[in-house]
């Protein structure tokens, strides 16, 4: 049983079931769905308030999502730690700049990879807040609650995601 902690990769069914159980815990103990993108909004607001605190205070959006460290922020911070612990235990932790698949298709240009990731990240940040959720908020929490908005958003994530990846990699 303990060996499982040191394995590099689990069956996706087991990993998924574990995430499902975490969803029970977050609803039961914290009265919250699992979601990640609001934490990025709050962090963005926190960084902006270092430079112009008054402007941030007056923004309508930050009145709804106050830029502060709260449950979800700690959760996203926990994801970094949890993935780090998992990869260190299995010996797969590695500082890497360009993923293999990307390298095979576009070469090992770090700047190109960072730029594509940056542009993708900007679109994703916009889209996540635009649809009020991300792959965990809509994909796992929302779908589990049978939310209509989440079903539509998840279809959008994958339709546009598959289309974009197919176009990129057909070059």
């Amino acid at each position, binding site marked *: 049983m303990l060996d499982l902690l040191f394995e590099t990769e689990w069956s996706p069914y087991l990993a998924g079931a574990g995430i499902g159980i975490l969803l029970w815990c977050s609803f039961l103990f914290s009265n919250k769905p699992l979601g990640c993108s609001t934490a990025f909004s709050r962090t963005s607001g926190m960084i902006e308030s270092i430079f112009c605190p008054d402007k941030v205070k007056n923004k309508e959006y930050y009145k709804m999502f106050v830029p502060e460290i709260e449950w979800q922020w700690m959760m996203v911070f926990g994801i970094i730690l949890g993935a780090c612990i998992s990869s260190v235990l299995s010996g797969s932790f590695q500082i890497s700049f360009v993923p293999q698949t990307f390298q095979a298709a576009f070469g090992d240009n770090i700047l190109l990879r960072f730029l594509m990731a940056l542009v*993708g990240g900007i679109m994703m940040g916009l889209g996540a807040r635009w649809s009020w959720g991300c792959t965990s908020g809509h994909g796992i929490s929302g779908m589990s609650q049978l939310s209509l*908005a989440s079903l539509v958003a998840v279809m959008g994530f994958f339709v546009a995601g598959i289309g974009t990846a197919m176009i990129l990699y057909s070059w």
Partner: protein
Amino acid sequence: MFTKCHANERLQLILGLLIGIGFGFFLQKGGVTSYDTIIGQLLLTDFTVVKVMVSAMIVGMIGIHVMKSLNLIEFHTFKGSIGSSVIGGLLFGIGFGLLGYCPGTVAGAIGQGQMDALFGGAVGILIGTGLFAHFYPAINDKILSIGQFPVETIPELIHLPRWIVVLVFVAGLFGVLWFLQILGL
């Protein structure tokens, strides 16, 4: 139920951290904190992401609906709209294809040492969410309310009892996993 626990702010911060550590651990063990796995899913060559998500949905869906029927928890749903869910979903998807991580797995990828997730992805998401916050009043006014959905949930939309829809979905999701197995994906 657990309302005292919900109101204890310090305890909630610790719970958030613990749930996050578990989440990051499972995502990493499932292989979905890797760009190669996610882009493989979007190129339809590797179905790990779907397997992880569908398994999480099956277990999560049954559990939270049982707890809801026992009045242990409340749901958190809202009315989507074409302007919000469709446009936002598609924007997110384009970002998904370019970045190859999502907001949760980008955090996990940072944890396992992916620098493109940190300096490209996470920085980009911070800029994107910041831009949204900046333009929120105008976007909310002109776009988000376009074509609001009449209901919050699928059972309400199709006028069937919640549990019947849960059973149909669980059966369908098992069907997806079985189908992938048959195809050898």
